[in-house]
């Protein structure tokens, strides 16, 4: 459903020079599965998901969503994906109903079907009471519900949630996680990015842990815990990241030393 192969992304940064945000990332996510994308801040999760959403073009490698290549057929990809991110806000000057309707029409859903679909979504996501509320008047939880409805309005087979619980209170976060589970049970392929390990533990069937743009490990949660002898995902995550940092610092030191030697 989502196939990522050797995906790389480089961009220029004033202060740090060229940055490799992704380095040869590969994984496959399947229908009816919640695939967790874990990593600390700056791991490259948002960059990867923006590439899946065709917002960014990869520098190398390839990615396919529901069989469509993100570079060759970006329009098809956008028709088959629902994208919810902390960066995809709702319009302040539109009501919940208007926002979802607007995107439904952009996705090409027929008017009659759209109305039925929206009624269903508003009921299922318990949004009927905020139907005519302007975005500017909504709480963070309400806005997140509207974002989910907007991403689901065209009934896509693939859904991407990027830090979707960020800023939500406990109740709103639990409701969102329940919705994600429901969607998984409906057979959707869900890519769920987070840096909150408890969420991933509760939700994800398989995970990939990213660190500085590279994949550290990938697999089923239980398998990974067994493999590393940890009973808790957070501990496993912390251990993997900690193992990488001294290695990276040593590499950096070695590089500086080598440059010094080369310079004479």
């Amino acid at each position: 459903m989502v196939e990522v192969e050797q995906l790389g992304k480089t961009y220029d940064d004033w202060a740090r020079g060229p940055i490799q945000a992704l380095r040869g990332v590969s994984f496959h996510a399947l229908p009816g599965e919640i695939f967790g994308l874990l990593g600390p801040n700056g791991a490259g999760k948002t960059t990867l998901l923006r590439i899946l959403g065709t917002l960014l073009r990869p520098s190398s490698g390839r990615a396919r969503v529901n069989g469509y290549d993100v570079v060759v057929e970006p329009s098809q990809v956008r028709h088959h994906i629902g994208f919810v991110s902390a960066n995809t806000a709702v319009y302040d000057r539109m009501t919940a109903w208007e926002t979802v309707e607007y995107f439904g029409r952009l996705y090409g859903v027929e008017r009659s079907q759209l109305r039925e679909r929206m009624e269903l979504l508003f009921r299922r996501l318990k949004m009927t009471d905020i139907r005519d509320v302007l975005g500017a008047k909504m709480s963070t939880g309400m806005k997140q519900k509207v974002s989910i409805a907007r991403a689901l309005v065209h009934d896509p087979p693939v859904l991407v949630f990027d830090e979707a619980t960020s800023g939500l209170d406990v109740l709103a976060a639990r409701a969102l996680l329940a919705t994600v589970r429901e969607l998984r049970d409906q057979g959707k392929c869900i890519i769920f990015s987070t840096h909150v390990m408890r969420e991933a533990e509760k939700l994800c069937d398989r995970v990939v842990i990213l660190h500085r743009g590279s994949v550290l490990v990938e697999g089923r949660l239980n398998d990974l815990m067994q493999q590393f002898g940890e009973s808790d995902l957070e501990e496993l995550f912390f251990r993997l990241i900690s193992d990488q940092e001294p290695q990276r610092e040593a590499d950096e030191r070695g590089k500086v030393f080598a440059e010094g030697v080369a310079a004479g």
Partner: protein
Amino acid sequence: MTLRNVGLVFAREVRDQLRDRRMLFTVVVLPLVLYPLMGTVMVQVAQFLRDHPTRVCLIGTKDLPDEPPLVDRDRFHLDLVDAEERHLLPVVIQPQQPGNIAASLAEVDAAIRRGEYDAAVYIPPGFAEQLEEIRRRLAEGADSQQAALSLKSVPSPSIYFNTASDRSQVASQRVERVLRRWREAIVRENLRKSRVPQVAAEPFQLQLTDVAEVRTRRAAQWSKILPFVLLIWALTGAFYPAVDLCAGEKERGTLETLLASPAERTEIVWGKLLTTMLFSSSTAVLHLVSLTITMIVFSRQFAAQSHPTMALGMPPVGAVGWLLLALIPASLLFSGLAIALAAFARSTKEGHYYLTPLLLVMLPLMLLPMSPAFSLSLGSSLIPVAGLLVWVRAFIEGHYGEALRYALPVLLVTGGCSWLAVRWAVDQFCNENVLFREGERGGLRVWTRHLMQHRRATPTVAEALFAGVLLLVIRFFAMMFAAAPQQWDDLLRMVTIQQLAMVATPILLMTLILTNNPIYTLGLKLPRPSDLLVAVVLAVTAHPIVLWLGSAVRQMFPMGDELQAQLESVGNMINQAPLVWMLLTMALLPAVCEELAFRGFILSGLRQMGHKWAAIVISAIFFGWMHSVFHQQVVATFVGILIGYLVFQTNSIFPAVTFHAIHNGLALGLSRWESTQIIKQPLWQLLYRTTSDGLLPTTSALVVAVGVIIVCGLYLYQRPGDVLPEAEAVTGT
């Protein structure tokens, strides 16, 4: 691109803007209340200026003649002052310090600067005496009148005022009117005393008859105001929605939501563009309506009392129609530019910063047609914005034939500029570096470190643009401070210094500091011999076309006499220089230095934009701009495009240097040979003809030149240009 999605984006954006109270205030409320309020304020200010008395000091009353009287107690004489100004000009007689005029004047001078008086009139000693002497001689008869001609004129009275004070300037104007009337009265008195009828001095009165119909007079009055108001508000009205729709959406996080939807980037841009156009046009129209009504009301109330013919009526219906028609391409152009600039901004605040540069570029183009010397011609119709403005003015004034004659160039230029603006806006929306530009850590240290540590093989686009602007700025200051050459050796010295110090040195320094591969940056790769041969052939065959183009430009934009004289003087100096020195300094040296700059550093940076022709044209515009005279700039831009293509296809600077040196050498050589017997040679006559506009190619030479250039172009087109190593250019990691 589907129209359905464009329509959806457009409808949403319009609804969104209409729900924004600030936007509604700017677009609808402000135009409706602005002009009536401004009118009220102006009336109050005018009343203040008109009604405020100004105090005038008079020195030297003892030298005033008895007839005609200048003052009547503490006022100017009633016959000399307009009825409505009589109470506004109180006069203070300044007692003069006996025998010390300088001290009295110094005192008055200081009093005006302190604001105690608004102006002073000084009657010099001997004024009345000398006047009386003239009158006496005139009264004595014809012989004495002859003698009177040898008399000295009457010493001149002076008006003292302070230009730093508005009140003082108003006072000086009032006093000047009074003194002019007084002078006329003196003339009349002189004539009376010499028994010469007044008709001798004033044999006739001028009768002014305005043949303009009311309709055309109104059209002419409105044609000067309305097009300018329309365009300035179309620009301003485009900017605020554009900033909200691009930078504002980025800031609010909704742009990413839209980009993740199935709407294509082009559809999104067109949706936003049409919204911006709608608000730009609406703002312009509402301002136009409000201003027109306000002006009509105020002109009827005030101007009409003193000058009934100046009262404004309703603008002709045709004028309104032409204005609305011109508004469509104008608002498309401004909206495209505004969207492209606003897309670059990360926030609304940053977006507003970009309004100033846009206004600074557009305002001169809008103000240019306000000059009485600027009229509709082929040349003016080719100037973006200004051409459109003067074209609409011709329509409003009813000069339909003239306007229709220039319709094609105006519409082509405006349409072309609008297309470029829209294309730029679409490019901005397709550029992820623009859309997802993060807040960079600023600061001079970080920036310098970035430049030094992360050098690339070739400059970035920004560095190339900076180099172009830097060369123009250096050239501007060099022109300001350089003395005009008097001799040929001065001229050659000046050109050498300019080329080496102001073109080559900055470019070589920038190459060394900003890049790590000078060979690629400056295009110092050895060319194929066939590339050099093509450069030679191109330079020789392009020359007749360049001559013809130069002549066409001179006809479209005629040169002033002063400029022509300056150019002739420089031409004479060049012809006096020894041939070898002239060729080395004015052909070879500029060829090397300017090619390193424009086709080396600047073009290699601009080619990273990914648009071949945009890179070539922009580098050519910089190259053209480096020339002093507008006519040379146009021709040099054309030559720059040819050389740019040559470099792009051969990836070497050497064919460009060859072309440039031969081109300059031919231009210099021909002007020298033109005055020799060589012009009688059959080959010369086959190629060139001498006209009143200088040397021009024959038609057959032009046809052959175009044919050869096409063949050379085909050779270059099939020439596989090497790819510069931008991809592996990054170092310092």
